[in-house]
């Protein structure tokens, strides 16, 4: 048993088949809820459970469901965000790969709660093989009467489709995802109107992360109080953390929210390998500021992370060792954002390009003393001025890195090389 909730049965052989899933109690919640608990009651239970979105922003899921207007004559849609594009995050992949039916059950329950009859699972372009797994599972569920007309013996109809994106990071942003799903260019839309009011095809839409939806069946089954046995008051429940970097056992770990970061690294991941020390940790996917080693005791929950100057984000924990050059690491991250900037707004489109140019100068040993402040200033000019959070995601790590590791940047300028020797190519096992 790798975790108390989502990872409880995750490694059971043959879990992708509906038979195994049902043996372990699968779809029982669906049968027990539909037609017996009213949609409003479902929303209330999820609200009471304090379940917060697991995609990164941590918005309370029940509240989001509650925003869907009850009197709208338009159809409603449920969209599962399975784009999982945040670098360092690979939890949804394992969840969907190994337990697709739990997602389907979660989707069906969420659709019931918001009275949507159509749901879409939006997968990133690279998840083609997961689409096959999901499609097979959807077919099984349909055959077993858990999807389609009058599911699970109730009068409720729901159909769920998978949709493959074209592999853009921005399509993890919910409005860009909806644009992409509609067949348009994947670019974020103006909010308000929020998707709950005007989302897919300008109809009320709820967009939830895979992990969020997978929590729904057990919450509806066991109740809010039961769910709150894990985690903290404001961040209840468990969360899956995807740990990467030079730790002994990288991988996905399901832990109650609030678990200290040091416990995750030392106890669960077995500490650092090759005698390396932790220099910094990016705790929530590449778009959050990094946490220096001195703050490793911070609890992994939304509030503590914000207090420490970073964010819990998607739970993609990237451990950076003391032999990794911070300038190089940030160059890598910035290149990613430059490549993935959708180009809609000026600060993100032009700012990330400029940052990469400055980073390249620093890396090539042509850096100038003014470059560090320039980088900070460019980031500051992006921060809060971009259309969506992508710009902030590109700016915050750089500003955080300059704040905590200014000496490494200065070393690059004065010595025209890295302060530490190991570059990412070595780390990745690729010749430099």
């Amino acid at each position: 048993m790798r975790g108390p909730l989502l990872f409880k049965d995750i490694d059971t052989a043959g879990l992708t088949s509906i038979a195994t899933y049902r043996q372990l109690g699968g779809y029982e919640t669906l049968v027990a809820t539909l037609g017996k608990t009213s949609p409003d009651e479902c929303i209330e239970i999820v609200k009471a459970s304090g379940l917060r979105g697991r995609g990164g922003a941590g918005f309370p899921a029940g509240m989001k469901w509650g925003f869907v207007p009850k009197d709208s004559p338009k159809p409603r849609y449920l969209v599962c965000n399975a784009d999982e594009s945040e670098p360092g995050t690979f939890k949804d992949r394992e969840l969907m790969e190994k337990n697709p039916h739990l997602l389907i059950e979660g989707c069906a329950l969420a659709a019931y709660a918001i009275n949507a009859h159509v749901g879409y699972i939006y997968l990133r372009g690279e998840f083609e093989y997961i689409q096959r797994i999901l499609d097979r599972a959807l077919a099984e569920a349909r055959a077993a009467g858990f999807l389609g007309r009058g599911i699970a013996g109730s009068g409720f109809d729901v159909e769920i489709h998978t949709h493959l994106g074209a592999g853009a990071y921005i399509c993890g942003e919910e409005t860009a995802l909806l644009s992409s799903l509609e067949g348009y260019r994947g670019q974020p839309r103006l909010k308000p109107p929020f998707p709950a009011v005007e989302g897919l095809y300008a109809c009320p839409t709820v967009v939830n992360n895979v992990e969020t939806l997978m929590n729904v069946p057990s919450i509806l089954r066991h109740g809010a109080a039961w769910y709150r046995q894990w985690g903290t008051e404001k961040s209840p429940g468990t969360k899956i953390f995807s740990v990467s970097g030079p730790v002994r056992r990288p991988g996905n770990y399901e832990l109650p929210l609030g678990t200290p970061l040091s416990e995750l690294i030392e106890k669960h991941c077995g500490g650092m390998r090759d005698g390396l020390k932790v220099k910094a940790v990016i705790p929530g996917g590449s778009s959050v500021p990094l946490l220096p080693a001195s703050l490793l005791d911070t609890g992994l929950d939304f509030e503590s992370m914000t207090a420490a100057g970073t964010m819990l984000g998607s739970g993609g924990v990237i451990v950076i060792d003391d032999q990794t050059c911070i300038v190089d690491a940030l160059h890598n991250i910035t290149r990613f954002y430059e490549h993935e900037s959708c180009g809609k707004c000026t600060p993100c489109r032009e700012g990330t390009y400029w940052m990469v140019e400055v980073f390249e100068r620093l890396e090539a040993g042509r850096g100038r003393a003014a470059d560090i402040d320039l980088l900070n200033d460019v980031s500051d000019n992006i921060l809060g001025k971009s259309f969506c959070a992508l710009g902030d995601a590109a700016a915050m790590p750089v500003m955080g890195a300059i704040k905590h590791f200014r000496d490494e940047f200065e070393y690059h300028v004065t010595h025209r090389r890295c302060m530490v020797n190991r570059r990412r190519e070595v780390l990745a096992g690729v010749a430099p």
Partner: protein
Amino acid sequence: MSATCKVTIDGHTIEVPAGTLLTDAARAADVHVPIFCSHQKLPPLGACRICVVEVGLPRRGPDGKPALDSAGTPVVTWMPKPQTACTTYVADGMQVRTTSPEAVTARKGVMEFLLVNHPLDCPVCDEGGECQLQDLAFAFGADFSRMDEAKRTFVSEDLGPVVKKEANRCIVCMRCVRYCDEIMGDDALTAHQRGVRTEISSFDRQPLDCEQCGNCIEVCPVGALTALPYRFKARPWDLRQHITVCPYCANGCSVRLGVRGMEILRARGTEHRGVNQEYLCVRGRFGYEFVNDAERLSSPLVRSGGSLTPTGFDAAVDFAAARLREVAAAHGPGAVAFLGGEKLNLEEAYLYQKLARAVLGTNHVDARTRFTARLPGEAVLRATGGGRPLLSLEDLGHAEEVLVLGDDLQGESPFAQAVLVRGQHQAGLHLTIAHPRRVKLARPKFRGEWLAYRPGSEAALLNGLVRAALERGTPDGLPSDVAAGLPALRQAVAEWTPARTEQATGVPARAIEAAAARLAQARRRAILFGRAFTEHPAAADLLRGIESLGWASGALSAARSEVMYIGPQHDSQGALDMGLVPDLLPGYVPVGDAAGRKPFEQQWAATLPAEPGLSAPEILRAAAEGRIRALWIVGDEWLRSAPDRALAEQALAACDLVVVSELFLTETARRAHVVFPVCSFAEKEGVVVNCERRLQRAARAIAPKRGTRPDWEVFQAVARALGVRWSFRTAEDVFREIARLVPGYRGRSWATLVPLGPQWALEAPAAATLGAAREGAPPAGEGLWLLSGGTLFLQGSLSHRGRLLPKLAKAARARLHPAEARRLGVAEGDAVELAGPAGTLRLPAALDVEVPEGSVFVPYAHAEVELNRLGAPAGAGLKVVVRPARVAERVGA
């Protein structure tokens, strides 16, 4: 929510309607907030971020009232991040700072970002001098660049003959892409790639497949899209700008002509001005070329010894006057006729008919030379509500349901089409397009309903729609005469059940019922019709049908009219208003109405003929038969526009005197006895009246080309030579007489007609004439229905004079449905021969699924197409036999 909000912007408090965007509120408060991606006709995007401002809202106490601090002023909570003014809607008590350090820093940051990849090629760029980025960089930017690395580069492209793209300069505001999609309905532009590599281009990087309107160039705030025809021609400060009215279609768009020296170098729209604002269609933007044409006539010509020889103006006037006097003396005033005039300004049209009626004493006046049958002058007026206040083009965009009857707006009225596309895209307007061809607006993309009636079944369609509309009940607000006539109308159309209409028209019964229901139920609606109905052989019947439909569906009411007539020329409406029809004096006063005639007779000091004159098709016949001996043709290539070419040739040959007022030595002018060279639209001033019946004063942009003068001066000179004492010094003098005399125009002041004058309406609307439309007899003979129309690029007789428009239009093709072509054994590009009752025409064929089977579409405005050689349409139209040219040759041999 209150209807208005108080907003304080940089200390200026203003009250604006709720739902106003901050950018608009700032404009109202006279505070400059820069914009790039925001555009008045497009929904907010918030992409460029240049309009960032600081926004604060009053903090509300627990009672919902604004909290006050100890000094009694409201406490303001400032938003943590700067907000984009172009996406923020005002709220009551909102505070905005545009010059605070935070706002200025943010704006400077965005400006710096915009310049990161923007090249420093302003000296070469055509936008230089009128570039918004240049202006804002000057106003807000730094004077040096912190970015000194290589900029990303693209290769420049020509996107067809109109648009030059220099993507390096692009700031990705997406205005062009959105304008093309949401207003033009063309979707020709798209963004390739993403991020900093985003590049605007066509989908396949091939030349743009679109209307070539160039509006993308107009809305581009930088020099990323520039106009190839204007490339490097001038800098903006070289140009004198003159705003005048476009001479092409009846929409009456304002065009801003840029003139350097004596030459017009470009035409543009004007933001916040005119009915069209910045919009121009391809003809409006590039169709001015004929003005600069070297082949323009520069001297009056008089026939002597079989050839036309240049003479002085006075000699030509004397010649014309003497001959007119001779003809009138020998054969009576009824032997003189006046044709054309839809391209004249209002004042000129007025003087033209005054010359005919008051000086020569004839009512043989008709501007509508294309008509194939007589149509009462009042028919159009009655179909559009008898002179009641008419909806405007702007109102058209706010309608819920719009029915377009038989008109291809793309060719005939591009701006109205753009208004409809925008309404459809942004405001949920529904389109019903009744047209045998699948015209642009009938394409599925616009989600309307296409009533694809069979050619010749127009009357049946109207009757079916009237019946279906009446089934929905009696509309409110009918005048008493209409209300009294409704039972009879109900009776008259009773037989036109949806099923019967379906049988007659081929339009599904369900679609007819639904269209009528939508029209009757809409709160705001519009019916548009144009030349396809007015130039129909059965036009008198069809127009009565349109009028009946207007009353039956509620589009016409005692207070207002929602039925609009799209005339063929920019001043068709003005010509009609000024009485360039045989049976009406100016202001729709019947010539037989003695009391109505009186003021005119007093003012003009003449006795006016009381008998209605001959209409254009009747004049054609009378002249060919020698009953009309003298003809004056104004601004009309009659040999091409008259319904029957052979008859027109005969008429011109038979006349003792043919006077032609023209810009060019046209085929018609070549057969004249006197030719007066006249000014183009850009060289004279005067009032024109567009399809909304709006009066606009068009300004003079350039001096008249050497040897030319305005038409009204020619009319006055001839009138004076005939012995009357006219003494108008300017067009304004003429307008003053109109404003004294003509109903609907009384009391109008020349000064108030710029930039946008009022829409006129009659104090006493004309009485309605309800009734069913009679079906014309199908034309005799075998063959395909001949469908014709203007195309987007060529319309009328001037557009083919330039270089660009004929190039865009390509050669004329006879368009056939692929199935029809297969039956005929014709492949794409094969030469086909069209044989009508009077003659033949040879054209290459084009396969087009948008043309219905059983018909052939031929554009009429190409120089090489002389449709009237085929013979005049009669009954309900014209049929032509189409066959491959090879076979035709063999048969002929």
